[in-house]
């Protein structure tokens, strides 16, 4: 089982995820239309680029925008969750060892204690995000089962990973579960709402170009995100 998951399955999921992301990313930008979107993307590449970078950069900084500052609760839960969701898969020691064995590459690794903190933070934040969906009427009204499913898919690798990490019950079972959930997540990325992991940059870039080119950028006004 373990061999299968870390062998064929790993290669398939990784391939589907990367190719899928790349394809959709390209499709997104090819599908932009100056006339339908009413943004002269190609006429002002410099202004568009500046706007796009600003639009992405500002939103990546915790409390970097009015939106984050006016809603600190979700900002904390959001960054708590996403820090873990981005850092742990890439920079956990175990993951890097695995990657080196499989791909011959590895990244910088996190200190084990720090990794624990990020993981718990992600789980706790996910819990608050679920709670928020249940409690706040303005979020509840829009929340569908699909939204919970996405949250579950994204947090499952963390939970199974923790169970394995603390060896609750049988280690190898949880490890396999962990790998399975992780691969499920990778597969889901290009095809579900999880596509936001890369389309976030695309969509933000688009609105950034809109403001950078049409809505004030070329008048010398930087959007106060």
């Amino acid at each position, binding site marked *: 089982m373990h061999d299968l998951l870390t062998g064929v399955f790993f290669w398939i999921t990784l391939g589907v995820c990367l190719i899928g992301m790349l394809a959709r990313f390209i499709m997104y930008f090819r599908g932009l239309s100056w*006339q339908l*979107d009413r943004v002269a993307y190609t006429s002002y590449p410099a202004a568009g680029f500046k706007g796009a970078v600003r639009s992405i950069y500002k939103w990546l900084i915790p409390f970097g925008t009015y*939106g984050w500052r*006016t809603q600190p609760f979700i900002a904390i839960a959001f960054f708590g969750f996403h820090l873990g969701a981005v850092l742990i898969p890439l920079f956990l020691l175990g993951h890097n060892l695995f990657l080196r064995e499989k791909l011959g590459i590895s990244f910088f690794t996190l200190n084990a204690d720090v990794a624990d903190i990020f993981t718990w933070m992600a789980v706790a934040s996910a819990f608050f995000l679920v709670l928020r969906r249940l409690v706040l009427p303005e979020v509840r009204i829009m929340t569908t089962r699909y939204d919970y499913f996405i949250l579950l898919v994204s947090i499952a690798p963390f939970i199974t990973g923790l169970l394995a990490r603390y060896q609750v019950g049988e280690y190898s079972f949880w490890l396999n579960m962990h790998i399975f959930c992780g691969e499920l997540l990778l597969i889901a990325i290009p095809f579900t709402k999880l596509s936001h992991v890369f389309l*976030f940059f695309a969509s933000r870039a688009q609105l950034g170009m809109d403001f950078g080119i049409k809505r004030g950028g070329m008048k010398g006004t930087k959007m106060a995100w």
Partner: protein
Amino acid sequence: MPEGKFCNKKPVDTAEGINELLSDTSGNDYYKEMKELEVDSDLLWKTIQNTVKSRMKTWLEICAHCGMCADSCFLYEVNGRDPKQVPAYKIQSTLGEIIRKKGKVDNEFMRHCMEVAWAQCTCCNRCGMYCPHGIDTGIMFGYLRGLLYQQGFVPWELKIGAGMHRVYRAQMDVTDADFVDTFEWMVEEYEDDYPGLTVPVDVEGADIMYTVNAREVKHYPEDLAEAAILFHIAGENWTVPSKGWEETSLAMFAGDWAACKMQVESVYAAMERLKPKRMIGTECGHAHRATVVEGPYWAGRKNGQPPVESIHYVEWLAEALNTGKLKIDPSKRIKEPVTLQDSCNYIRNQGLKKATRDIMKHIVEPGFFIEMSPNKEHNYCCGGGGGFNGIGLFRKQRNIALIKKRDQILETGAKLVLAPCHNCWDAIRDLEEVYEIGIRWSFLKPVVVKMLEIPEHLRPEE
């Protein structure tokens, strides 16, 4: 009765058609007929397939339903934080639903969409600034309005408004002759006070071509006189076109894209005919958005620019004051608490916040200008934008929508509100009518005209 006599899918493009629609008092029969209007699902779905591309598809897909847009929407706030007023919910439950059902929606649903599109969103685009994914719901509502218009589900006044543009190339039944006559009449009325005051019509190669809002011609022609006076005192070489003088576009509010194109092309034709150095539009927000910001795209101009550089009135005024073309008599500056309404259409949507503040510096005694909170690109809609002001069917909702601006104004403590935008001006006027908070409101022109320092050679002989 799928297609009604008044309410149908066909745009109005004759004067008779407009009069017929107008004869249906308050659109009573129009809305009755709307209940029977058939939805052309095939057309709806085909249009969506042709026009919903990456941007909007992605917006609708990746919306995390996180609700962060809720607080950004003034309509959500003033309607008791009704979850049904959350921008993401509003668009997902209308446009999102139409797309999920591949256009197979019924009449009742379309009428619901009409209410959401025109009474629950003013297309102020504020929520777009508060969405982590950069989803601009206002843009999608603008798009939804287009779909609804195509299917005939559009508020009565806006069907008329769009028709006016088709027939008169103006938002009201003001002809080209009416425009020139009225402008000349106004100049005549003021020429004793301002010797040499003229209105140069159709002058080629002028520095400025001035365009207006038809309402000024019809009901508030003093505005034309004031514009002429300010250009005159500033020593500008200006002109007005006898054709293509209307900058506004109710067609934009209606979602009648074909009429939008006709309208802006009439202004662009005037630019090409008269070859001015610049075009300046009056103190109107949506007019600027329509003719300068969005218009080039409707007209198929790939670089997104009108044929000649086009600026908003506040940009010209700021420039004239900054460069000393217009001088303010310091003793006549505003010496009472005064606040400023930022129009969404050219502040948030074209970044002109500095121009208006420069103007305030010149015309207000230091210490008397009080900013609203929030302000600039984060300011709230006046409450009547996007066509909301004029729709009788949604008047109640509109009056509730005014509460946000009312409270913002009250918070400043100012009794005078400067609103360099027709829509904002109307909304603020209406909020005084409805809520009686004891304020006055004004465009910039009348205020500035009164405090000008007039150069010796332009003064009347005593």
